[in-house]
């Protein structure tokens, strides 16, 4: 440390900042536990991930589900590389997410004021939870399609017509009530990508199609056998948190 000058101002400032931080921490309920001695362990203890519930739609109405499936089918169309977003289960993923804490905005600050036109770092500025945003925007989308495409809902449109509507939404052209067409487009696009690449236990990424597409090995955490062979392809297939077909003999 010989060559370094110590600046008394900075150290005082650091001291004040750290005191303030300590006061902040001290005033909130501490959730951390103090451990001493051995790490606690109990036989059979586990906190497994909660898989998406099987069965029909939980949050979406049948009409909403059809519309969302029609959207994700165009955002990720089936081609030689992968099945469509619909066939990969992205709509199921979104349905389960909207029925859970994400849909209810349980981890977002949801008190006013909500100010339009703020910079992105101010976060979402809608009083609606994601689940409510879908409900409101899908209603607007349905009305928009019925008045512009001869009474047809979005799901009944031809693929090219759907692409046109989506492209317009991306630019924010259709006027939606309550939640704008452009933020809704961004929301669905974001959730569709999440559904395509999240672990299959959450309802999307069926048969790990998203991971196979990009060569992601899934829930693995040991690459010691491969780290010195960077020029060779990685051969192990992707694995979900709940396994893969190869765990059963003959599969």
């Amino acid at each position, binding site marked *: 440390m010989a060559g370094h000058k110590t600046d008394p101002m900075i150290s005082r400032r650091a001291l004040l900042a750290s005191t303030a931080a300590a006061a902040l921490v001290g005033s909130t309920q501490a959730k951390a536990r103090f451990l001493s*001695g*051995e*790490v606690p*362990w*109990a*036989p*059979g*203890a*586990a906190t*497994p991930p909660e898989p998406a519930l099987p069965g029909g739609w939980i949050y979406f109405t049948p009409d909403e589900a059809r519309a969302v499936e029609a959207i994700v089918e165009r955002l990720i169309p089936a081609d030689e590389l992968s099945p469509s977003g619909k066939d990969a289960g992205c709509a199921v993923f979104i349905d389960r997410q909207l029925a859970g804490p994400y849909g209810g905005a349980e981890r977002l600050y949801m008190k006013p004021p909500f100010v339009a036109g703020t910079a992105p770092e101010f976060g979402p500025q809608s009083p609606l939870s994601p689940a409510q945003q879908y409900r409101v925007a899908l209603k607007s989308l349905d009305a928009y399609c019925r008045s512009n495409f001869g009474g047809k809902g979005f799901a009944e449109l031809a693929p090219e017509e759907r692409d046109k509507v989506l492209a317009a939404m991306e630019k924010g052209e259709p006027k939606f009530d309550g939640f704008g067409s452009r933020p809704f487009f961004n929301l669905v696009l974001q959730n569709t990508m999440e559904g395509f690449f999240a672990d299959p236990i959450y309802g999307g990424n069926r048969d790990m199609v998203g991971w196979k597409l990009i060569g992601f090995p899934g*829930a*693995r*955490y*040991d690459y*010691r*056998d491969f780290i010195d062979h960077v020029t060779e392809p990685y051969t*192990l297939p992707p*694995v979900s*948190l*709940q*396994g*893969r077909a*190869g*765990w*059963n*003999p*003959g*599969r």
Partner: protein
Amino acid sequence: MKRALSLAASVLGLALAGGSTAALADGQDYVTITRGQYLATAGDCVSCHTAPGGKPFAGGRGIMTPFGVIYTPNITPDRETGLGAWSNDDFVAAMQHGVGKDGELLYPALPYPYYTKVTRTDLVAIKAYLDTLDPVRNEAPPNGLPFPLNIRTALMGWNMLFFTPGEFQPVAGKSDEWNRGAYLVEGLGHCGACHTPKNALGGDKGDKVLAGGVLDEWTAPNLGGDLRTGLGAWSTEDIVQYLKTGRNAKSAASGPMAEVVYYSTQHMTDADLKAMATYLKDRAGAPAPVAPQPVAATDPVMQAGLAIYQDNCSACHVSSGEGIARLFPALKGSAVVQADEPETLVRVVVQGTRAAATRAAPTGPGMPAFDWKLSDAQVASLLTYIRNAWGNAAAPVSADTVKKIHGRLTDTAATP
């Protein structure tokens, strides 16, 4: 407790000599008491005679036997519920002959078939130590034994069949160290209580001493010299390290053995541990079981097991099965992995386990439970794989076997 044990360790110099007759005057002197404390530690009395969350030595722990649960008695000097009213002769009779203070026969859950080898001098020292404990009033719950096992006189026949009383006799021509090891292993250490297989009536199979046993769904491996299922690949130093720290480069103690290391062997002197290891490496063991032909790597079950191993196990136990020395046990060449009985393997995969956390190795690394993601059939494939990969060879494990063992698992054997 721990302070008491470290006190024991601090007077090791005094406690070392097995046959010391220095302090027999009245059994109340410091030397005898501290020697008794060391011997009580070597005998691991506290492990069984303490209920979960209970006062040390106050009894009440349920010992799971194939015949029912037997609750350990209070051995603190409480006059009504403990050993307070017991004379030295009463205590020696219980330990050497399995006879209680009122002449009743004791269940061999008290390992008197082993303690019978302990010298009277040592037993009196243990009693002197127990007499210094705080008396705790604690009556053990009634045993859960069915008729006719609840009739203690039934034990007369058992003793006739399976019990040979008599203090340990040194073997001529063997070193003092070897004989000290034999005395500890066969007597106070009562290793055979778990490591010797039992017959249908719970007696030791005389031709298979220390050849490996099963209790409460834990496999106690063969302590013979077999390379595959025994201690053949372990050096004397490996054994000493295991008993002293709960680990060595190949394995880690968990389950009931973790208790033994935690409460008992980690507090023993290096000389005593080396004596035990010397004896274990040199004794003439039962003939090694014949190694089966390993299951072929191309077998679909082996392929499934490999996939499960790669995805769930290799991060710690390494794809080569060699583990990480002193942290994650090696499965390659492991005796417990290749034991005939897969109880420990099923238990450890289903429930997880934790290595003993000792003074020398205080971390106590744990293995998580896998029952939430692996079916019994998948556990069976995995076990068949690890028993037959990397040069290992052992009988495949069926899904049925896993299901049966899984159904019997209790969480009574949590690592301390």
